């Protein structure tokens, strides 16, 4: 739990985040956190709120705002995911999510670099930043923040750190296990790392790479072995999106749970156009920048204190 000083520091981070996006002509939005239907995702369990649900992410409503004509939007909001509790997970957490129309994931990765570098300039007293705000101190490591950061494809990462091909781990149904045990701990130590180009089956709401449709334009940002953000070139094709939802719903039903297609979202989706979007865990960012060891130390109230 945070002391008064810790709360002040957290407030300065939130202010710096907002300044960055206001300074780049984003508008801040806030969308309903209680919704009648969510994105069907077999690996994410929502909390029911009467016959509706608490949001697991603000993605559906934010994309509908893009479809309405917004060009650049961001949001800092609470999200809820059942049964996620650990050093880097809480059932309720704060997400920073932003979207930029006309962009692909490439521009978004560059904006991530600018974002963290701008925080280093704005928040020089944060314990995580080294002298001159060009490095981030994590454990005993010094992570160089100077752009460009490290860009590592999922294929290269599995070959380099696990000596296995992505095809092999997918065929043996152990992609997540190998990623967590062998790949993730190695990422983002010399410089922050973008792990990019995921197999399409793990592409979620990312569009396929035009030149290589077995890959999806999705990336994850890692710093000091910790996953900080997940971004996409967003899938804007409503027909393909419906197919992916339906396939995901089949998995959800097979797991004995309920799931349905967010129809309103699919109606609006064709108006959204090309865009890129990203979700970033604010408490994880705060933990890294303020050199705290766990999320529990980085929040105003931890679960046990409620």
């Amino acid at each position: 739990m945070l002391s008064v000083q810790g709360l002040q520091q957290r407030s300065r981070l939130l202010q710096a985040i907002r300044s960055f996006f206001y300074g780049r002509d984003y508008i801040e939005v806030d969308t309903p956190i209680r919704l009648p239907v969510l994105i069907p995702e077999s690996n994410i369990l929502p909390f029911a709120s009467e016959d509706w649900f608490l949001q697991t992410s603000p993605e559906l409503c934010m994309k509908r705002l893009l479809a309405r004509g917004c060009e650049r939007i961001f949001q800092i909001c609470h999200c809820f995911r059942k049964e996620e509790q650990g050093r880097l997970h809480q059932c309720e957490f704060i997400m920073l999510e932003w979207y930029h129309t006309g962009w692909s994931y490439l521009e978004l990765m560059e904006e991530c670099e600018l974002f963290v570098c701008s925080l280093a300039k704005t928040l020089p007293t944060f314990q995580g930043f080294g002298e001159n705000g060009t490095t981030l101190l994590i454990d005993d490591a010094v992570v160089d923040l100077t752009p460009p950061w490290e860009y590592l494809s999922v294929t290269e990462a599995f070959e380099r750190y696990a000596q296995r091909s992505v095809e092999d781990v997918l065929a043996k149904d152990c992609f997540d296990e190998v990623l967590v045990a062998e790949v993730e701990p190695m990422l983002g130590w010399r410089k922050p790392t973008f792990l990019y180009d995921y197999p399409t089956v793990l592409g979620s709401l990312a569009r396929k790479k035009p030149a290589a449709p077995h890959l999806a334009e999705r990336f994850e940002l890692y710093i000091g072995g910790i996953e900080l953000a997940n971004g996409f070139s967003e899938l804007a094709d409503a027909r393909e999106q419906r197919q992916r939802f339906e396939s995901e719903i089949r998995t959800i039903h097979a797991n004995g749970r309920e799931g349905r297609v967010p129809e309103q979202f699919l109606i609006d989706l064709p108006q959204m156009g090309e865009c890129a979007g990203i979700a970033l865990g604010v408490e994880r960012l705060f933990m890294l920048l303020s050199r705290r060891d766990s999320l529990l130390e980085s929040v105003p109230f931890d679960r046990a204190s409620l």
Partner: protein
Amino acid sequence: MYNASDLRKGLKIQIDGEPYIITEFDFSKPGKGQALYRTKMRNMITGNQFTQTYRSNDKFEKPNLEERTMQFLYAQDGEYHFMDTSSYEQIFLTEEQLGDNLSFLIDNMEVEVLFFGERPIDVSLPIFVNLEVTVADPWAKGDTSGSDTKPVTVETGYQLQVPPFVEQGDKIQIDTRTGTYITRVKE
């Protein structure tokens, strides 16, 4: 039955018919990926350790474990015999099963014996036990060697460091968790 989401440090589960205790636990979940429950555990019978990662739909049986208060009767041919103080039932554990506990076990001592089903698999000693010193160098008054402790042997054969004033025939209290001297006991 336990679900994967019940896993935590200290939980006892049954795998392939044997009881395990979880000694380390970590929840992880890569972005858009599955929840993974990473555990390190120890087989409560063999002591073997291993690590294993589970997914959220994995389920675990509860081991049938029960502690009973028993009194140590005697040792014979490497078998250590105990008696249930309420039912008078007798069982034995092997020297190997008792391990370091043997340093502190004396006749008539009451201990907690852990049963897996009908099978005794472990004992927990009282945290503090009083044992008699059987071998100690006499306390040389005026010894200025500067040493704060000296080695002694207690009735079980266990050796430990104690303050110089402890003499042969004294009873001393020992912490069985650490094996260290606590105090001299007057009886």
